[in-house]
């Protein structure tokens, strides 16, 4: 089936099987491997991307469902070498270790801050409900998002 998708500002068109998930499309067809597969059944959040302005788990979206949509992945967050303030805050506050959950965390953080520009600690923790991290104990992820919020509001 033919689909047309805009990913990180670039338009793509491909003929794909309906059963191809969006994450598979991003990784295997577009070679955008920054979006990771941790559980493949919408449990872990590693595959979180932004579709038409909202965060979603790309393992639980078929690529055909995204036909016509505009998608941002982790690869679209930085402007060249200039990191997005959320990415910058993760670096500054050691919000990542192995890096595997990180793209999903950053994409979810962006959604949290879009809907609530000044979240408190508990709001951030609840906001991360759909994202697992096994390395950081979330401590520095929460700190990173707090600092990103401050920076983005200033």
């Amino acid at each position: 089936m033919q689909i047309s998708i805009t990913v990180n500002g670039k338009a793509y068109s491909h003929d794909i099987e309906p059963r191809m998930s969006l994450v598979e499309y991003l990784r295997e067809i577009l070679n955008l491997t920054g979006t990771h597969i941790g559980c493949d059944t919408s449990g872990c959040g590693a595959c979180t991307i932004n579709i038409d302005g909202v965060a979603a788990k790309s393992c639980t979206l078929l690529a055909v469902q995204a036909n016509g949509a505009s998608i941002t992945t982790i690869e679209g967050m930085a402007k060249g070498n200039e990191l997005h303030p959320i990415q910058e805050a993760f670096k500054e506050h050691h919000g990542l270790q192995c890096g595997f959950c990180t793209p999903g965390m950053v994409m979810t953080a962006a959604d949290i801050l879009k809907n609530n520009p000044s979240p408190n600690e508990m709001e951030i923790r609840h906001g991360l409900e759909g994202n697992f991290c096994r390395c950081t104990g979330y401590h520095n992820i929460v700190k990173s998002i707090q600092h990103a919020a401050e920076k983005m509001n200033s």
Partner: protein
Amino acid sequence: MIPSKFDYIKVSSLNEAIELLDKHGYDAKILSGGHSLIPTMKLRLNSPELLIDISSVPELNSITLEGDEIVIGANCTHHAILSSEIVNAHINLLAQTAKCIGDIQVRNRGTIGGSLAHADPSADYPATVLACDATIVVQGKQGERSIVASEFFQGIFTTAIENDEIITSVRFPKVANGNYQKFYQSASRFAVVGVAVVKEENKVKVGITGVSDTPYRATAVENAYDGTATAASHAVDGIDVMSDHFADVNYRSHLAKVYVKKALEA
């Protein structure tokens, strides 16, 4: 994980969807947000031959106030519901319920129609739909019909929807005083117990999910209600209570009473 092969058709009208559903019968499934359906397909627990994507059917995407009723289109996402001004103004209970579902990403994509049609016995909406006496509107080959909440849920993953029917909307009355209380399962975050209470003058309406394989109206609580929370002790009267490794019958029954009490007191 990859589902078995299937065909996919994105329809632009309800009639088109119903035609297809009628033609393909059990081999077809309706796809809206897909957050209940797709994981089961990836695990190959479910292998439909055709997915009918109704996400672009325009009339299913709105939240409107029609007289005394709040009409939620089946394709409305949990996020759309929890952030809707109409919902927050007239049936805050429903917004509270939507907030308890899944996580940000799931709420952004999952829909009320999909959740109700899936009828997971631990889903959140059923408690609220029951407590509100909401009406589930479905459309099929024979036209439109309304199913009252109390007749909608028929068992585990089983509803009163006929195979050629699609949920088009859910109609809620205005609820001035209601609240949803949830004790979640620590892994899935589905409800071990979810209790929705609607308070009206001297009576209450209580919907309970997670406790039994079918969500139910706790009529024993409603009948015993005396303005205090003591009626909570009747939360599982006559109910066949589910058991799993997170909550056996005793504990789940206890939680049901505690959460009915919380909801009555809130």
